[in-house]
């Protein structure tokens, strides 16, 4: 038997055993991580399997509690760095530490802490660069960096990384990640107003994904494709795509995504002049967003609803919708500037410029999410 093969199989068995032991401990740590910071790391926890489980747990927590993910990933970094020297092959040790840093970066990104995310990715890259065989992990880390850069609006840098990642994931026959890279490219194109390019990119991503077992990415792609078609005023294609996304999210029981996609359908219907259907769809989406405790998005959907009411001449219903949004924003303690803009909207609602004002205020409140200090200017002042 070759020594390499022996070491590989021994490591495989060791990892599997360690992960089994670590799993229940890590599960309980999720609720009591605070307590472990102020003591030495128990020797029994200093295993590769433990780090693996910690990193997986951190990833699983991300969507529900990104702050907890930060803590768990930081702990994974510390445990990975304290693995006994020589117990594991270097590739394993480095991969685990790099993976923990990458998870930390993802959590920081989720919390819009972009500089901290980039620092964590720098650490991941430093770690992963020393072992030749970790090309896949380096590509994953590059993709994480592209996500951060695109969130920061550094689109050219992000696109360059995305193209590198597409090639790397294609080489590794990883269609899911390849499609995710293309999805990011499409998003950047969409944000830049290049909707035709975005449509082509999303369609290419769907072809790459083909029959891969990843309905979540497929649903996101269909949703984004629908939105891009909507921007191109191709209502038929937009609705078809969004309905497919909705069906997939429903199958996955992804409540948040269903509400957001339903909201997208409502907006496409509104733009296409199907006001009654738009009212129905937007009311449902708004209700769901409120149920999910997403007052900001529910508020924006409420303004779309007001727009739909105004389009059919139901000014009283529009006023009611705006009043509800004001009350919700106030209750949620959201940005005071948004409340000022909504006060202005209330005053303008009875006038003929009501629809233009609704859209103006909606755009402003949407922009506040990324630029919270932006000053509100009334329609005439713009």
């Amino acid at each position, binding site marked *: 038997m070759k020594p390499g093969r022996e070491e590989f199989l021994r490591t495989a068995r060791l990892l599997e055993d360690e992960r089994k032991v670590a799993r229940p401990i890590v599960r309980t740590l999720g609720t009591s991580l605070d307590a472990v910071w102020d003591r030495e790391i128990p020797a029994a926890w200093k295993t590769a399997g433990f780090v693996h489980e910690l990193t997986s747990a951190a990833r699983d927590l991300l969507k529900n509690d990104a702050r907890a993910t930060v803590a768990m990933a930081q702990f994974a970094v510390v445990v990975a760095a304290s693995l006994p020297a020589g117990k594991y092959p270097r590739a394993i040790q480095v991969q685990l530490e790099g993976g923990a840093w990458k998870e930390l970066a993802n959590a920081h990104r989720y919390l819009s802490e972009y500089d901290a995310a980039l620092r964590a990715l720098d650490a991941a890259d430093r770690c992963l660069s020393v072992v030749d065989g970790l090309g896949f992990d380096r590509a994953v880390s590059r993709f994480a960096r592209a996500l951060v850069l695109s969130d920061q609006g550094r689109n050219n840098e992000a696109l360059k990384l995305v193209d590198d990642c597409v090639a790397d994931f294609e080489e590794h026959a990883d269609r899911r990640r390849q499609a995710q890279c293309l999805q990011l490219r499409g998003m950047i194109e969409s944000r830049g107003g290049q909707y035709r390019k975005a449509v082509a990119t999303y369609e290419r991503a769907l072809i790459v994904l083909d029959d891969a077992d990843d309905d979540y990415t497929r649903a996101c792609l269909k949703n984004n494709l629908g939105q891009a078609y909507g921007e191109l005023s191709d209502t038929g294609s937009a609705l078809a795509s969004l309905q497919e996304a909705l069906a997939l999210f429903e199958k996955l029981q992804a409540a948040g995504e269903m509400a957001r996609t339903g909201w997208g359908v409502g*907006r496409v219907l509104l733009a296409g002049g199907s006001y009654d259907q738009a009212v129905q769809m937007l009311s449902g989406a708004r209700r769901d967003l409120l149920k999910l405790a997403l007052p900001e998005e529910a508020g924006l959907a409420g303004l779309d609803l007001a727009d739909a009411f105004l389009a059919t001449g139901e000014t009283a219903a529009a006023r009611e919708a705006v009043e509800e949004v004001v009350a919700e924003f106030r209750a949620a303690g959201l940005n005071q500037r948004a409340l000022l803009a909504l006060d202005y909207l209330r005053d303008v609602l009875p006038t003929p410029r009501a629809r233009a004002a609704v859209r103006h205020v909606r755009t402003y409140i949407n922009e506040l999410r990324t630029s919270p200090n932006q000053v509100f200017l009334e329609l005439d002042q713009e």
Partner: protein
Amino acid sequence: MSGLAEPMVALELESSEPPEPDYAALYEQYYTLMVSIAIRKFHICESEAEALAHEVFLDFLTKGAGIEDQRGWLVGAMCNASRYYLRRRARAEPLPETYAQAPDPSLARVLEMWPDQLAAREAIGKTTARCQLVLRLRYFEGYSVPELATELRITKKYASKLVSECLRQAYRRYVRRETPPKGET
């Protein structure tokens, strides 16, 4: 129709864990192929090609269950690793012909440095998890105090104090280990 909801990005959400692959069978099946790719396609010597294949297999271990196309992944990873190896090697400068006669200047103080470095690592390893994180970020990853404060969500002043406290803790615990208990010689 501008200002639609933000497009969605599918994060790398891994689904529930599929069963682990049969690693021994995969190793048997693909090892020779992978080594031969590095040798024939990238002209890498056999021992290095074997080391690369081994690294790729070890990386595969940490994600094996989540990989759909195992053959594609392994072959692709081998090509990627081979190219990375060649790029790294191309950046390395050859040693001068006289290298055997002159001592490496970076090793001039090695006898003094190594014990210090080993002691530092050992000392840090003896501190609490929080101190390990603090000292690691500050001294191994080069975080500035303000960056450390951001990472830990504490004030800069407290971050600075924490670094000092952790250094003291490392020193105390290391010295305590080194000093024999009373009564022992």
